[in-house]
């Protein structure tokens, strides 16, 4: 076991699965790089994640494409329903607008609308999230968009260990999986076993145990949630941090079980607020965990705007440790009128 970054853990998952199963292949823009020159493979994707892959697996399994996302996802679909296990890369999740049909109307629906006879073991990897000053068209998370659609599974790892195990599970899974990698996490380091392992979907991680407030967070918001839990612990406020790891399927049991103990729920969601994961979870708990609730459910989200470019604005845009802390304090302090 060695320290690996989130990026390295993801690359390792891909490498191990490609070695294990000849049906696994990669397709996307610049994932090798240098196509049409004498220097194939010199790039390995815009974040260098798949560097070295074309050398090991060849151009037939590390496929650079024109800038044609509908054809990329569509081609991955076609390969998946005919027996392969493609891993397609959307260079940024924000590009989903030019290929959503192949995701929500095709991949997501094949199995159901063809009466269970089709299977589409497709993985779409996509970097998400803010913090890089990338502006309105390169900073979205869009996980609620995918979570909304029946037939898709949606994964949001918050650390290197989970990233590897969830990606291996995604590749072996028989349903289409959207695998969302947060750009701010690529450099995060942790101990990651060298061998292959799977983390099942729909099983939340109790990152911190606690009794006073349940704090649910995803992806890059998990470290922020933990920081808040650490801060408040010093004051004797015990915060339970839950990382659902997959938004679909969602481990609502874990959340309900926690809220049953704490009676107080805060959800941190890097997303505009409307029809978000924050509202999704709040809705579930307001329906199924109503009797447990001792305080209003608090949501910490982005405002209902696009991502602004300027650092001063983007910092105010993303859920900050300060805003999360304030929300937890508010939930904790709430007392029902007698």
């Amino acid at each position, binding site marked *: 076991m060695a320290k690996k970054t989130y990026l390295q853990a993801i690359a390792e998952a891909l490498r191990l699965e490609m070695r294990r199963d000849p049906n696994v292949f990669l397709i996307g823009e610049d994932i090798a790089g240098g196509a049409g020159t004498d220097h194939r493979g010199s790039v390995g994707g815009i974040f260098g994640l798949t560097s070295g892959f074309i050398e090991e697996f060849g151009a037939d399994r590390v496929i650079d494409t024109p800038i044609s996302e509908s*054809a*990329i996802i569509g*081609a991955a*679909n076609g390969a998946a329903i005919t027996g392969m296990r493609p891993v397609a890369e959307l260079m940024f999740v924000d590009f989903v607008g030019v290929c959503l049909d192949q995701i929500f109307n095709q991949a997501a629906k094949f199995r*159901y609308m*063809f*009466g269970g006879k089709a299977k589409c073991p497709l993985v779409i990897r996509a970097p998400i999230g803010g913090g890089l000053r990338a502006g309105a068209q390169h900073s979205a998370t869009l996980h609620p968009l995918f979570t909304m659609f029946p037939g898709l599974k949606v994964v949001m790892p918050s650390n290197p260990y989970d990233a590897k195990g969830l990606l291996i599970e995604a590749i072996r899974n028989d349903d289409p999986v959207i695998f969302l990698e947060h750009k701010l996490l690529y450099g995060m380091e942790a101990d990651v076993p060298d061998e292959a392992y799977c983390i099942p979907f729909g099983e939340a991680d109790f990152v911190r145990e606690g009794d006073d407030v349940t704090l649910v967070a995803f992806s890059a918001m998990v470290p922020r949630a933990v920081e808040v839990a650490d801060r408040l612990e010093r004051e004797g406020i015990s915060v339970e941090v839950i990382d659902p790891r997959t938004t679909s399927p969602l481990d609502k049991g874990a959340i309900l079980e926690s809220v049953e103990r704490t009676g107080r729920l805060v959800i941190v969601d890097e997303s505009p607020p409307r029809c978000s994961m924050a509202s999704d979870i709040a809705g579930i708990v307001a329906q199924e965990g109503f009797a447990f609730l001792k305080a209003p459910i608090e949501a910490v989200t982005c405002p209902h705007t696009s991502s602004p470019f300027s650092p001063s604005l983007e910092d105010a845009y993303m859920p900050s440790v300060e805003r999360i802390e304030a929300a937890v304090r508010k939930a904790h302090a709430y007392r029902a009128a007698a």
Partner: protein
Amino acid sequence: MNISTLDKSFAMQMSRDELLRAYRTMIEIRAFDERIEKDFAAGKIPGFGHVYLGAEAIAAGACHDLAADDYIASTHRGHGHCIAKGCDLEGMMLEIFGKAGGICGGKGGSMHIADFDKGMLGANAIVGGSPPIVVGAALNQKIRKTGKVAVAFAGDGASNQGTTFEAMNMAVVLQVPAIFVIENNGFGEHTASSYSVGAESIAARAAAFGMPAEQIDGVDFFAVRESMLKALERARTGGGPTTIEMKVPRYLGHYIGDPQAYRTPAELKAARAIDPLVTFREKVVSAGLLDAETFAVIDLETYARVEAAAEKALEAPYPDPSALERDVYISY
């Protein structure tokens, strides 16, 4: 050598069995969609209905030399492709009527009918949905070096969709064994292709993407088959993709019941006068390969089989609502 001589000699290379198989496919499509038209117009079929009448030679000719494990992907107008690729008639009928036992359990219907076991990757109710998928099915064959091919059917209207263009370029770049069969029936819904296609022809536009492309007569089974055989040979031997634009009449409106005020009665009559089945029969009979009698027997038998399937579908029960949450993982 003029075209009809070429066709004749081409037809003569086919065995009697092959000719019979081709004709059976065409008449089965004809009988099937005539029956669908009737029951749909009578309100017995739910949803939307698009029939393949007039285009029978395309599906039959394009699929004639495909193996069971070659792939096709289709359009909203997909009954002909299903039949030509060998899908089960009864299962199709049940499906289109929305009944239990349908080929997709009643979840798909006419616009989302599929049979993966037969290499039929689905009708597609999204115009331009299939071409990218076919590039992937073909890519699979290239990676695994199977020698198999994948064929996308798409209309003249679908030829203007960005997804189709991307698929064509991608197929050329990756040199995959994909064939784009463009069924140009003159209309996308109620808009003439003479208006919607800015190019000189769909084939010329496809050729400019960097692949062999030709425009042929989609009414003539032999012309379709001949052009497909060249494309198949190319695809199976690593020669990359091909586009074939096939001109064909549209007998009915876009959907069953379309009043088609944009076509004059004379135009409609002219369209219906062009008949791929008649063309086939005439060629084969005049070449002395089969006689009219033989065709009549097949016609009778086929119509009877289709009628039986339809009657069975009419009487079959709808799926039990408990099937609603099957065939998908559920997350709340």
